Structures are given as C-alpha cells and as structure tokens.
C-alpha cells in the first residue's frame, strides 16, 4: 500500500463528503457548538443564559442537592429517566428488527418491477402527520378500540386489554413509528443478494439455517446495523409517542431535555444532558465504524 495512493484515497473521500459536511457544519454541528458552550454557563432568569462560567450544570446532571435539607445525593430521577429511555429504545430496535427483517426480505424478493410499489406501500402510512398517526394508533389500541374488538370477536380474550397509558403502548407506538427506518436500509442491503447464490447452496445440500447464517445474514448485516442506528438513536429522544400513548406520566430523555429548555428554564442543564447523550452515542457509533470497516477488509 503506497502512501500516495492512500493520500489520493483520503483526498477523494473528503472531497466527495465535502458537500454533506458543509451542509452539516452550517446547519447542525456548527450551531450546536453554541449550545455546547451553554453547558458551562449560568441559566438566565427567564430564558437563555448569562455569561458567567460555572460547572454547576454538570454537577446537576449527576447529583441533586435536596431542595429541603440541602443534603447531596445521586440524581436518581435522572438515572431512571436515562435508563427507561435506553431500555425502551433497545426494545423498540429489537421489535422493529423482528417485524422488519421478514418485511424487507419479502419486498426484496418480489419481481424487480413490483419492488418500487411495495416500497411505497411501506412508506405511505408515514406520509400522514406523526401526530395524526399516533392518534390513529390510539384508536386501535384503546379500551374499546379496534384491537380489543377484534380480539373479543374471535374469542381470544374475555375482557378488553388495558394498553393505553402504559409502557406497552409506548412500545407499540414507537415500533410502528420507527419501522420504516429499519425496513428500508435492510431492503437496500438484501436487494444486493444474488438469488443464484442461495440456489447454489441448496444444491450443495446446505440447510435452511446454514443459508440464513452463512449467506443471508452477512449480506443483510450492514442493513441491520444501519437500521438499528436509525431506530435506536432517535428513539432515545422520542417525544410525541411517550406523551400521547404513554399519557405523559413518565418522561424519556427527550421530554426531560425539552423541559429544561422550556418550562424548566435551565438551558445549561439541558445542554449538559445533551452533551452526555451525544458522547454515549458517539462512542457506540465509533465502535460500529470499527466493526463494519473490519468486515469490509474481510470481504
């Protein structure tokens, strides 16, 4: 591997990525630096910040000073909010994968001419507004809703299920909302698979399990990883679904940070919390890049 070749590779790589990077520096990462500095400032009286340097926000992330007796303890409210978000997001990712893989497989194995139509069929429900869609899900799962009527009708249950305003409702809603984010990348990956490869392996007496683990999964893997990122990362910050279907009784990180920038009027704490979230997710992503580039050189 000559260094000049590597240099050219780097130059081309940066050049091709440049438009995306310029856009993101201008309208995402760059402005975010403004907010990052807020994490080290003092909250303003009614909004914004005062330019007085302090680490108080960072202290508040982890510890709380009891409002009544001034004793200092771990901020267990913050920890439980973070933990609930991560748990629900993980479950959402698993559920979207379990429903998404067969669906993506089904679409990718349709005749070439039909595939676009099936892709549209999967995305059209998402062209209606998120809020309206969430209300519609509520119609389905509520006490006297469609689901309970159907289950009662076929005699599967005796009394209607109480799903609304529970974590189950949030999970159902998030799985619904984030499903296309899992299906589409997996479809893009599966679609590369040459069917003849599978036929050949069956001819060579491979079992179904072998075909699945040795041929299909390696091909789909980049899609699974991309889909998992697209579902897991944004669902940590989910806002509308926990509020409407979960009844807003329990916060997720997204709602909690929103509270700091909104009615709580504590921008520095909100900024510090989001920097921590950014850090956790970045570490996870770097890990992913390492793993996926290693598989690149394997193949």
């Amino acid at each position: 591997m000559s260094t000049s070749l590597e240099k050219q590779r780097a130059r081309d790589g940066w050049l091709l990525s440049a438009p995306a990077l310029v856009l993101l520096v201008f309208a995402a990462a760059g402005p975010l630096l403004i907010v990052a500095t807020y994490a080290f400032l003092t909250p303003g009286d009614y909004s914004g910040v005062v330019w007085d340097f302090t680490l108080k926000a960072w202290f508040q992330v982890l510890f709380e000073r009891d409002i009544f007796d001034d004793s200092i303890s771990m901020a267990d409210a913050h920890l439980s909010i973070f933990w609930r978000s991560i748990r629900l997001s993980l479950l959402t990712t698993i559920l979207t994968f379990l429903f998404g893989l067969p669906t993506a497989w089904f679409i990718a194995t349709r005749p070439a001419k039909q595939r676009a139509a099936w892709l549209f069929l999967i995305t059209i429900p998402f062209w209606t507004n998120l809020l309206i869609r969430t209300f519609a899900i509520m119609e389905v799962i509520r006490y006297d809703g469609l689901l309970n009527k159907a289950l009662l009708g076929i005699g599967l249950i005796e009394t209607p299920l109480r799903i609304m305003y529970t974590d189950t409702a949030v999970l159902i809603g998030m799985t619904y909302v984030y499903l296309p984010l899992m299906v589409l990348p997996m479809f893009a990956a599966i679609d590369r698979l040459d069917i003849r490869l599978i036929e050949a392996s069956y001819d060579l007496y491979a079992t179904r399990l072998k075909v699945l683990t040795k041929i299909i999964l390696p091909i789909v893997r980049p899609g699974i990883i991309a889909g998992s990122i697209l579902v897991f990362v944004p669902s940590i910050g989910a806002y509308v679904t926990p509020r409407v279907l979960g009844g807003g009784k329990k916060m997720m990180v997204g709602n909690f940070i929103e509270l700091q920038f909104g009615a709580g009027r504590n921008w520095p704490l909100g900024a510090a919390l989001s920097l921590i979230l950014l850090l956790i997710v970045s570490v996870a992503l770097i890990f992913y890049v390492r793993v996926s580039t290693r598989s690149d050189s394997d193949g």
Partner: protein
Amino acid sequence: MKKTLILSAVAALIAGAAHAEGELNIYNWGNYTNPDLIKKFEEAYDVKVTITDYDSNTTALTKVEAGGHGFDIVVPSNGYVKIFIDKGLLLETRPDQMENFKNMDPTWVNVGWDMGRHYTVPWQWGSTGVAVNTSTYSGDINTSAIFLDPPAELAGKINVVPEMADVMAMAIYYVGGTDSCTEDKEILKKARDVLVAAKPSWLSMDYGTTDKLSSGEWVASVNWNGSTFRARLANPTVQYGYPVEGYPLWMDSVAVLADAKNVENAKLFQNFIMDPENAAMISAFARYSNGIMGSDAFMPADMKTAPEINPPAELAAAGKFAEACPKAVQDIHTAIWTELQK
C-alpha cells in the same frame, strides 16, 4: 393556468414575507384566533393578516428574544407579559389612550403585569380548575382534592394537564400556601408530598382534555374552563369545579413587539379588538371571557349563562393570577416536577 397559479404560490412561499404596507403578522397560540375576526379586520383596514402559531409561552419568548422572526403581535399570558416588558421586547403603544379603551372593563386596567395598560390589550382570560364527569362521581367537585386526594370512584381515571405552573400552583394552594411562587420550604415540601402521593391515582398527564372528557375516557381532569365548557356541550354530565382552596387565573394579552415592522397596523388591531362586537367574536371562538364591557350583548346565548364562564360569587375570590416565579423557586418546581415524572 393552474400550473402558473401553483408556481406563483410556490414562488411567493419561497420568497418569504415582504414587509410592504398593508400587512400584519400575528404570533398567537394555535387554534385560538377566530378566522371571521381576522377577515373582518382585513376588510375594514385593507390589511393582509398572517397568523403563525405557537404552543407555549417559553417558545414564544425564546423566538422573539432571538430576533429576526418577522412578527408584529404576540399574545403572552399574564406572567410572561412582565418578562417581555422587562426584557424590552414590547413596544409601549399606549392602548390606554386609544379610542376604544373606553370599553375596557376597569377590573383589567390596573393589573400587576401591565399597570394602566401601557402595552397590552386583553385577549381572553380564564381559569384552571377541575372537570369531573358527574355521572361517575356525585360528591363536591369544587376542590383540588379531586386530583390531589382523589375519591375512590375517580382513582385511576384522572388526567392532569402537563402544565407545570398551573399544577404546582394548585398543589401549593391545596396545602395552605397563598402565593404560588412561595419560598416557604415547609409549604413546598407539603406540596411535593401531596403530588407524589396522588400520582399513582392518575391515569395520564396529557392534553386533549375536551375530547376525552366528553367521550368518558377520563372521568376527571385538571382542565381549563373554556375547554370544559366545550366538553359539556358534547356531554352534559361533565361539570367544572372551582377549587375552594385556590385556583390559578390567567389572561392572555395582545402586545406589539419592539421590532415590529407594521406598527401602525398592529396598533389598529389592538384598538379593533377593544370593540365589544369584535371582542365577542374572540370569545365565541375559543369560549373564554374577554375583558371588554358590552361584549356580552354580542356573545352566543349559551355563553351568557355558562357556569364555566361565570364563577359563583363565593368561589370567585379563590382565583389568583400567578406570576412567573423567580429562578430559585422555579428550580424547586422543576425538581418536584421531575421527581413526579421520573
């Protein structure tokens, strides 16, 4: 033909609002402005009015403070009017010297957030109380115990609107506090304890109260009076309670922004809505009271006698306007709220 129409619409949208003469940009709460009122104003003064929505006082304040928004008029709630004024974001338009000020109800002239009405004109005012479906619970509903110490019939079927300031104020009044921004730790501690203890009896903390109250999905809710009024029209068993321990009042007021581009039109609008007939149009749409004398005559008949709009005399005094709390108190409220929703 249609194509050019769409194209020009697209072009106009992308070009953005040009601030020519004859325009007015109103920044108001969503679903709060009667379109007929706007149409009437547009025709009377040959002004093109554009409405843009917000969903909370903090969003409005943050956006206006950042600048470059293009709005002329904003409609903040009482506590926030003072913040807007203190930050120098409002123009002193002197509504008290305008022609239609004669119609202003004297009750609303010398208010804490705008003494003598140098900046703002009332839009609507109301209260936050409790709504109860009386077919399920027939006891006394004029108490915050409905959601803070719920009777067995209601437990598990209660909603609380996720408005931190209102809910905190009601809890503080319930445990004997008189000032919603009290710094008395004993009171705040009691308020926290009563909220934490009541939380397991709540089904949800959500908006959409009008709908779910009338459908019977929620049997009780912390709710606004106008919203309960609309729920009762759909389902007569829904009643509004004014908690005797104390309940928050609020008033949203129309103010002109310091960086407004269409100041004259904005002033015309302030004067316009002090006309009783026009004020009645505001109330007819969102179902809250306005602050203009003589507007009753133009109100829909069902509003004149509505118990949600006209509190019984013995309970009227329990209503208190809440200010936006100082930072130290606010932090305690947020901590309690976080503990409640963790």
